[in-house]
């Protein structure tokens, strides 16, 4: 029996200082998660503005210039402010608990990783109030358009630098924690899959965030210091920015999905009451996906001008990713095969993830085909694709993880009825929101425009209705979380009957300090590896 040694005399400090000066992985994890929730609401509000303007053809509510700021900021806020910090928050909370470590390996740096973010986003959001408004050239910041923004430009670039510093430090901490802080006996191939996927994600982050920093630095010097990286007159090329950017950008989308794979791989076995099918193949599939992510970037650029050999290489390399991803979907389904399944909210979100993320994967395969992409490029088909993988993929997995671990964090069970309602409401409306966008794209509606031709009116109205309903539904999530923090049915240490892993051997809520001395591992308690 593995036991948690907790020192009651190390209670959490009181007051604001507890949060500002914290070196505690649980408190910092909470900060990350709450910050992410706040940014999710801010970015969601921007999405509402977008869907409102697109409700009907013609210009109704906002200036086209402001509309473009909304699409740009919505992306930056959701990617760097909502999804990535949510995963880092989950990593902070769960990785030390899952591997039996007393805390993150570098606790002071952990604090800094978080506390850079509020400043970075204050800076980013402040650009909306500047001369010329916020960035409006799309989150990808393609030159020459992005170089023509107003005063906001330098602020956006530096905000991205700050976010990069935060991500890199966070990733370094995750790697050091996983490689150096595991309890004795917690060998690499006994680690929970969430830990494995985060290890690989952290590697991707350290490899590509500096490349983004380099790319935006070149933008900055092109704008202010006379360089010609992206200026053909000086022997540069705007397309080169796209290459450097997407060398970061494609691994970035796996940074936003690998931890989601990890969460789902924890939840499905728990509610199917069976060990994960094909544990080792899951690890190898994750590693293959990470490797492939470095050699597919130009599939974002099929129409910008590339030699034929390049188009073919990037097409085939992209399609190969379907193999390891298919392995994963196969394993999740096989885990459920003949399992004693129950469908609590985390499981519902995890199942929603498997089905809907797979739809996003298939539309991704369609986009990978060069001649087809010539039609789809920069249409709403692309928008539908990446929202399926990011909203019903990443965000659904985050929701699943939140419901799964909320009892461990708060010591209370959330309201199951409300949780299930939240799932069904979200799952229905998110499809009303994004599924019609496939057709809009196939019919030729371009993305990033505030007005459109009348033949797109019906599907846009349906999509907007779905958007409003989905958006309102997320307020319910906020309500459920707040309510669970404040009270509710007491959660047991093992909050779910079928849940395995070290995190369920400590009390709920998890004490301020856990595993001050390493736990003794008991195979029957572990989710993976031992005994299976």
């Amino acid at each position, binding site marked *: 029996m593995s036991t948690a040694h907790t020192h009651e005399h190390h209670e959490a*400090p009181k007051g604001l200082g507890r949060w500002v000066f914290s070196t505690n992985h649980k408190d910092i994890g909470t900060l990350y998660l709450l910050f992410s929730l706040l940014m999710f609401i801010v970015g969601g509000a921007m999405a509402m503005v977008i869907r409102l303007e697109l409700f009907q053809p013609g210009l109704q509510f906002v200036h086209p210039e402001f509309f473009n700021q909304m699409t740009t900021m919505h992306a930056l806020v959701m990617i760097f402010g909502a999804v990535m910090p949510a995963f880092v928050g989950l990593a902070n909370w769960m990785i030390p608990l899952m591997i039996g470590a007393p805390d993150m390996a570098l606790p002071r740096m952990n604090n800094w990783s978080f506390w850079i973010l509020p400043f970075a986003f204050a800076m980013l959001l402040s650009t909306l109030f500047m001369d010329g408004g916020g960035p409006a050239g799309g989150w990808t910041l393609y030159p020459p358009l992005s170089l023509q923004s107003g005063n906001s430009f330098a602020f956006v670039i*530096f905000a991205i630098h700050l976010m990069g510093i935060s991500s890199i430090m966070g990733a*370094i901490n995750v790697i050091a924690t996983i490689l150096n802080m595991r309890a004795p006996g917690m060998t690499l191939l006994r680690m929970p899959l969430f830990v494995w996927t985060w290890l690989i994600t952290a590697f991707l982050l350290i490899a590509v965030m500096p490349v983004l920093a380099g790319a935006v630095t070149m933008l900055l010097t092109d704008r202010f210091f006379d360089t*010609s990286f992206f200026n053909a007159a000086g*022997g540069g090329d705007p397309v080169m920015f796209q290459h450097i950017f997407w060398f970061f950008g494609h691994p970035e989308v796996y940074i936003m999905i690998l931890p989601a794979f990890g969460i789902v791989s924890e939840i499905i076995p728990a509610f199917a009451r069976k060990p994960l099918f094909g544990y080792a193949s899951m690890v190898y599939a994750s590693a293959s996906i990470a490797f492939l992510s470095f050699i597919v970037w130009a599939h974002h650029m099929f129409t910008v001008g590339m030699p034929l050999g390049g188009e073919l290489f990037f097409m085939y390399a992209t399609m190969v990713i379907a193999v390891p991803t298919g392995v994963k979907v196969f394993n999740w389904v096989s885990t459920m095969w003949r399992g004693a399944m129950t469908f609590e909210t985390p499981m519902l979100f995890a199942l929603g993830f498997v089905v809907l993320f797979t739809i996003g994967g298939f539309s991704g395969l369609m986009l990978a085909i060069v001649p087809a992409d010539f039609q789809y490029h920069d249409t709403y088909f692309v928008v539908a694709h990446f929202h399926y993988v990011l909203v019903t993929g990443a965000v659904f997995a985050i929701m699943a993880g939140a419901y799964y671990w909320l009892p461990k964090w708060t010591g209370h069970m959330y309201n199951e009825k409300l949780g299930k309602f939240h799932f069904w409401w979200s799952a229905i409306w998110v499809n009303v929101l994004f599924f019609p966008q496939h057709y809009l794209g196939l019919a030729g509606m371009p993305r990033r425009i505030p007005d459109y031709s009348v033949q797109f009116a019906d599907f846009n109205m349906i999509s907007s209705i779905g958007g409003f309903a989905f958006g309102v539904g997320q307020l319910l999530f906020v309500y459920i979380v707040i309510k669970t923090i404040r009270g509710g049915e007491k959660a047991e240490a093992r909050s779910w009957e079928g849940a395995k892993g070290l995190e369920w051997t400590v009390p709920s809520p998890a004490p301020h300090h856990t595993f001050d001395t390493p736990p003794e591992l008991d195979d029957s308690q572990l989710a993976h590896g031992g005994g299976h």
Partner: protein
Amino acid sequence: MSHANGSYYVPHGTRWPIIGSVGLFTLVVGAANWMNGSSSGQWVTMAGAAIVLFMMFGWFGEVIRESESGMYSKQVDTSFRMGMIWFIFSEVMFFAAFFGALYYARSFIVPWLGGEGTGAMTNELLWQGYEPVWPTNGPANLGGDFKTIPAFELPLFNTLLLLTSGFTVTMAHWALKKMQRRALVAWLAATVILGFVFVYFQMEEYAHAYHELGLTLGSGIYGSTFFMLTGFHGLHVTLGAIMLLIIMIRCAKGHFTPQEHFGFEAVAWYWHFVDVVWLGLFLFVYVL
């Protein structure tokens, strides 16, 4: 303020990161305003830099005190090592972006502008008569005619300086392992001096490029890649030399033992990293 938890040291609370965040924020807000032409921008930038410096002194100082009072176990040491290794890896990837830009420009952009492959019509219609050779400041001759720095003069000498400094820092490591403190400080001093002499010659080279060769940051893609690569490298050498200087002072004060000297090793790794980057620069920026 701090307290050892079981075997692994976990500090209880720290104020340095929030100071660092305020400093970084002040620094970049100032820099952005400065670039936008605000006259107060430079003062805000400097204030931010001062706060960051204060934070670094405070933070590193606290860690050094903890380390010297023996609060760190072998496992903590390993965490620090991993942190440094992955930090250096992130730096490698930062340079990779600029090296990538250099290769892409040389192998693709310039030939395409000259009419190769599908660039034929671009060249015909926009840049007729442009001869695609390296070095280039592009078809518009941006920044005017320029000459490049000959590789086998000052850059070769600088290469020898840095290679020698890699040797001296290794000698310092040997001296530390044998606990010959005087030799250790002397070898480190030699390394620091070599580092700063390198930076001095780089500045000389820049002055020469700007004043006599007509080579500036505005000299098209050649000027961009040349100055951004060598500039960021020079910045890293400067930082590395300052770090070495601080390690030297710590050695003189009697810090580090033959068994435990992570601070020394981290800086030595960093120094080898800037050394290796320079070899890449010498080959791809100066020689080829």
